[in-house]
């Protein structure tokens, strides 16, 4: 799994890739952390989160939104994301965890929100690609 930050006039885009949907979504989460902070230390405790949504794009949107929420409320930057994605009845579900680096340990800037702008989730020969624009 990996991610790349891509240029966007006002904002920052994340292109994520992985062997599974879970890996790809977690890589997008790592891209969110990279858009927030350049140097990430090895500190912090892991925490888990579960998110359900009506479709895959909605799930990626809600998952990243939940990471931003956890960041603001816990006062930590979620990094080293891990996730599995599966269908649960009529919905999609992500069971994820992250290491929360305390704000005191980093010099970071705020990413305001996740957007649907130009969002893509595509199956490839080797797994899944996702593209998401973040509002900075």
């Amino acid at each position: 799994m990996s991610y790349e930050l891509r240029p966007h006039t006002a904002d920052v885009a994340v292109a994520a890739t992985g062997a599974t949907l879970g890996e790809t979504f977690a890589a997008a989460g790592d891209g969110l952390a990279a858009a927030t902070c350049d140097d990430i230390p090895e500190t912090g405790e892991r925490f888990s989160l579960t998110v359900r949504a009506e479709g895959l794009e909605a799930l990626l949107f809600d998952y990243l939104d939940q990471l931003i929420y956890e960041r603001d409320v816990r006062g930590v930057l979620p990094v080293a994301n891990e996730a599995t994605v599966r269908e649960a009845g009529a919905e999609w579900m992500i069971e994820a965890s992250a290491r929360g680096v305390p704000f005191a340990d980093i010099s970071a800037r705020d990413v305001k929100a996740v957007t649907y702008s130009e969002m893509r989730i595509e199956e490839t020969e080797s797994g899944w690609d996702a593209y998401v624009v973040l509002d900075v």
Partner: protein
Amino acid sequence: MTTREIDGIRLEQVREYVWEIPQEGEMRVPARVLASEALLDEIGDDKTLQQLKNATHLPGMTDHAICMPDGHQGYGFPVGGVGATDAENGCISPGAVGYDINCGVRMMRTNLTYDDVQGREEELVEALFANVPSGLGGGGVVDGDKETIEGVLERGVDWALEAGWAVPADLEHCEDEGRRPDADPSAVSQKAKDRGKNQLGSLGSGNHFLEIQRVTDIYRDDVADAYGLEPDQIVVLIHCGSRGLGHQTCTDYLRKIEKEHGDLLDSLPDKELAAAPAGSELAEAYYGAMCACINFAWVNRQLIMHRVRQVFARVFDRSWESMDMHLLYDVAHNIAKKEVHEVGADDEERELYVHRKGATRAFPAGHPEVPAAYRDVGQPIIIPGSMGAGSYVLRGGESSLDLTFGSTAHGAGRLMSRTQAKQEFWGETVQDELREQNQVYVKAQSGATVAEEAPGVYKDVDEVVRVSDALGIGDKVARTYPVCNIKG
């Protein structure tokens, strides 16, 4: 007729600085771009024009969707976009307001001159940086418990007055006297309130900043006089918004609209244009929530401004009142507001949701919604520029109601992505050059923010303001130049 074609989009020049994209296909109205040739070249460089065309698909869009001279690509609706939709049969679009609800700018006057500040810049920038929370997780000026958040959302700057963070004159010099009466705190989610409670009175990061500036130029003496501005005077400019509370509110309503009004969403070319039909429960709830976020952002800027007064009082060892530190005005540039405008060929009066996303209200002299203090000269407009270019104070122009539903630009507008900026600029170098060559003292939580906000990443604010002035939508009154700048 002069025409231009940019990426397959044809623009016809209606008159100087006014370009029209004719109505075609699913467009409900034509679109207009207000720009010089040079600005149009920059606007045409990214997806701004396509996003502007997409914006005309919103139900009830009236007359034109309009791109201001500083327009650039956003998500869904372009930044620098103005779109007025019918409040009875149209829609309201959280996507056309943006994530940072009531992101805006306020300017505070002082009676200090540049001489009083020169030599003390370092002390001032350090004191401001230590006392005004910025960046990620810096907390807020005030600890927001449940009662505080509810009070702020409901009553706006009235809350700040009761809590000792404002004086009555602050309310008199703010749009709506700092309180949106349509605010409905119960329409703001608990999630949004959770995010807001640690951020009440904080700058955030990105392009948000606090700047001590000096007035360098006056262009209209009578208006500058009414605004209390004169050459060499020190003023303070504060640029920030509704923080995580507003971002979460926009996110929440985009998702609710997606779930409840999927048909309308499917008819739009971009999911980020998400709109609730006028009159629907969700439209009412979003409007109430957005107005509550507007109140939150006003209080956010008010708390920072009042904290700056305290910092100045300590640094200069005088009361802030004796330094005449009073609010000149506060402008919102991410907002939708119910307003009555004359529209169509027969100038029929209609109530509209005027969406201004990266655009500033610019009501002319005599308009009843301009605060009494400025009604004879027109509403003050504050256009923040980059750290190296300075900012402008304008006044609402005579033509703004005819051309732009009473709106003008909101800033310089970005030219370069943040990722590219970090490749081209190095934060410390930018900081050193600004200090040595421009006598501007900058302090930021993150060096990357300084690189991303380097003067070179912005459009020419002088050209943006020149076009606004020439069109008569926002007239030049004064120019200011940074002395100290703090950011997240």
